[in-house]
């Protein structure tokens, strides 16, 4: 009887513990999802470094529809919760067509156990995985134009790109090697209230496979040229925007299943 009682207590304790753990996990998940902040970005007319018109070398400002952008890149903890909830995105289960096996979450200790600090940006994720994550948040990946428009701001100005001092500041980041581990998200907000667009990680955009196209497909010549920076660089309108140009060069060199140790993502929503 006493033994049974003890067993009962142990069971009750175990159940209580499990319940508490579950509650804690759920609370953590809830707080993670409620903590996700999106900032409204209303750029209006915007001049991209990529030509948007039919003349590949001429600038043509376009209207960027108002959208909401995630305040910070998706973190390791947030992505770990996503993988736990959507096991088809575990690194040991995802089909290789969606994520290169050698890269995807390769820095994690186990399929569900990240190694990096929980609030650092998640990296080594494929475009497909980033897209699936954003869908789980009721969002999508930003387009290049949206990302570029939001990233044109500094702390006070919505478009600081003409300022050589600001350009130099951004460029300085690209000159530094990637720290290991990556710092936590949460840098200073820009004029839109969006953080970490520069200075932390590279970021996927939804139309990453749209950036380095020659002005006309008839003029492509050797299609392999698309793989090289030079082929597309001739079509960059503002060639002084080295930092942005480097982003484009990186993104256009990627396949959707790729990932790199300093490539993360954030999500966007149409308004």
């Amino acid at each position, binding site marked *: 009887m006493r033994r049974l009682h003890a067993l009962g207590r142990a069971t009750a304790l175990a159940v209580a513990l499990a319940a508490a753990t579950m509650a804690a996990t759920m609370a953590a998940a809830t707080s993670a999802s409620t903590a996700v902040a999106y900032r409204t970005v209303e750029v209006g007319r915007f001049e991209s470094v990529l030509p*948007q*018109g*039919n003349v590949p070398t001429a600038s*043509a400002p*376009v209207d960027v529809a108002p959208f909401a952008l995630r305040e910070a890149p998706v973190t390791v903890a947030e992505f770990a919760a996503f993988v736990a909830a959507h096991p088809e995105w575990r690194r040991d289960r995802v*089909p*290789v*067509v*969606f994520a290169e096996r050698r890269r995807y979450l390769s820095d994690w200790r186990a399929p569900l156990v990240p190694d990096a600090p929980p609030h650092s940006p998640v990296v080594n994720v494929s*475009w*497909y995985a980033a*897209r699936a994550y954003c869908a789980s948040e009721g969002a*999508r990946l930003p387009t290049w134009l949206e990302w570029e428009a939001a990233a044109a701001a500094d702390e006070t100005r919505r478009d600081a790109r003409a300022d050589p001092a600001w350009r130099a500041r951004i460029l300085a980041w690209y000159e530094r090697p990637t720290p290991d581990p990556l710092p936590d998200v949460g840098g200073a907000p820009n004029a839109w209230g969006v953080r970490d667009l520069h200075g932390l990680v590279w970021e996927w955009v*939804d*139309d990453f*496979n*749209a*950036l*380095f*196209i*020659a*002005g*006309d*497909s*008839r003029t*492509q010549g050797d*299609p*392999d040229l*698309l793989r090289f920076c030079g082929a597309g660089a001739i079509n960059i309108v503002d060639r002084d925007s080295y930092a942005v140009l480097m982003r484009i060069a990186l993104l*256009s060199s990627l*396949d*959707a299943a790729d990932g790199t140790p300093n490539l993360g993502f954030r999500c966007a929503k149409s308004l």
Partner: protein
Amino acid sequence: MNAITFDRRTLLLGGLAFALAPGARAAALPGESIYHLSATLVDQNGQRFELASRRGQPLLASMFYTSCQMVCPMIIETIHATLKALPRADAAAMRVLLVSFDPARDTVPVLAQTAAARGCDARWTLARADEPTARAIAAVLGIQYRRLDSGEFNHSSVIELIDGEGRIAAKTAKLGAVDAPFLKAIRRAREAAA
């Protein structure tokens, strides 16, 4: 060097799938298969279909938009020429899938009209999908496209041989004439299946 031919083993494995009747499909898709992508499209007859429903037969796949004056008609003509250059039985077994990246303008009637005007028979599917789906199909096919403010598109022009299990077995960027190495890759895959 217009054709990228994959290694022999991939082709042989892919070729095996050519012979499989739909009822005899292996249960598990290979990891490289584009048919893992969940993508709903609508064809030129207004029929909805899943990309994965194309599993089981070899496929020539590309992307296009109908208002394109120059390159897209060339893609269609190049596929016609490629099919004509194949032995009759191989050509009959081949399917063609062209996905538009201009869903706003490429409605079902427009696709139907293009299919008729370009002599596309029952082997051909001209399809549309919503923009996020078209973007994902471009990703699995490794095709780049960008909509310009004018409504025109810049895009890479590539025709891919997809084996019965959804693996990209060969691709060509040569337009306007039959790409001999690409043709050879198709025939090799078919021979392996025979």
